[in-house]
């Protein structure tokens, strides 16, 4: 009997893995992220439509998530998970500081992609979507054994009406991050809240 239980467990894992990522092309042009945050793209991205491995509300990639990933979290409310899911997934709380939010992002990455060895680079004030927010960068390692990769993350966050907005990009530290950094900076610079939400 125990063997059957283990077996069922293994099968469940297998099936969750077979639910592969599926992508659709978005851009170039204006893109409205769940009617909560709009950006302008000067090139096409692959948007993950469905499947395992999606760790945030909106997940885009240019060369596949092993090499680069852009996460957009468009306005999550108090008590909601930001990166990853599950009972112990870190949740956004009102009153979080910039350092808290970076910590929350790192905890989310640690839990969802076996990330560790975070090396902070910067957390600095920045204006994003016309709001006072902050910009952050850090490096980290993710994955295990043959899947281990060295990554560099760049993020932007701000709060509006007690909701957290987050743009998080992370990519292979070598070649892919430096190559895509200006592209992501332009995406972030284009971010704006939809008209109806403007005050």
């Amino acid at each position, binding site marked *: 009997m125990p*063997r059957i239980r*283990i*077996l069922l467990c*293994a099968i469940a894992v297998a*099936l969750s893995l*077979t*639910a*592969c*990522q*599926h*992508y*659709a*092309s978005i851009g170039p042009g204006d893109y409205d992220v769940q009617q909560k945050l709009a950006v302008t793209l000067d090139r*096409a*991205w*692959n948007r993950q*439509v*469905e*499947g395992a491995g999606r760790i945030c509300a909106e997940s885009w*990639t*240019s*060369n*596949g998530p*092993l*090499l680069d990933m852009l996460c957009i979290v468009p306005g999550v409310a108090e008590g909601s998970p930001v990166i990853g899911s599950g009972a112990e997934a870190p949740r956004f709380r009102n009153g979080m500081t910039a350092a808290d939010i970076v910590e929350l992002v790192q905890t989310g990455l640690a839990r969802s992609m076996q990330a560790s060895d975070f090396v902070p680079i910067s957390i600095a004030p920045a204006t994003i979507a016309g709001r006072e927010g902050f910009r952050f960068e850090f490096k980290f390692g993710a994955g295990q054994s*043959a*899947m*281990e*990769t*060295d990554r560099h993350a760049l993020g932007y966050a701000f709060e509006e009406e007690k909701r957290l907005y987050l743009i998080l990009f992370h990519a*292979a*530290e*070598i*070649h*892919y991050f430096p*190559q895509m950094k200006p592209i992501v900076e332009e995406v972030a610079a284009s971010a704006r809240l939809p008209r109806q939400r403007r005050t």
Partner: protein
Amino acid sequence: MVVSALRLGFVLGLAALLAGCVQNHHRLTENLVRAADKPPVILVLPVDAELSELSFGGAPTIRQDWTVAARENMNQALHASFADKNANIAFHNGDVDDDDLAKILRLHAAVGRSILIHQYEGPSKLPTKQGKFEWTLGPSIGRLADKTSADYVLFVHVRDSYSGPGRVAAQVIAAAVFGVAIQGGAQIGFASLVDLKSGDFVWYNRLVRGAGDLRTAEPAKETVAALLTGLPQ
């Protein structure tokens, strides 16, 4: 529902692959670039092979004995297959004491894996690639060239699974449901060639099939030959 449709699509896709009717290699260069009078040097990274058995309990278990044998067999087959080619090969054992070089080798593995997942027809194909084959490690690869004075890097990655009752059952189901015959082990892998000057992947060959056996020398030669199909001369 979408998920299960995708899953079905995947199963059908896999069935098509195992039936062997899919174009598998990409080649951006016909000939290896060589200096005057000198054959090009191809650096062979450690073969990344893992052989597993579907155990009586139903879960796959990596078999170290098979894996060791497979690496030996494949290394020997690689040696043999280059004997009649106008290229020198050098085996690298992957042990580096240089952090930057270690990062390059990890990036190399990540790009190779990404191609396997995202380049070909399947649920995870990236639409923006539009079928073009453009993958690179970037100019940072120069560090590997400096360290080894090689011209190209060859990398072989294989995951191979064998019989056990699960495998037998899969054969029965595949034959009954999809009309596909699966013989022997299922092999999934790739071989890639990177130009050390540009960092570009200039050749890539995917192997997905329901045949082959890496546990013994002769069939392993056949698998290596299949993996090296279309390698620029």
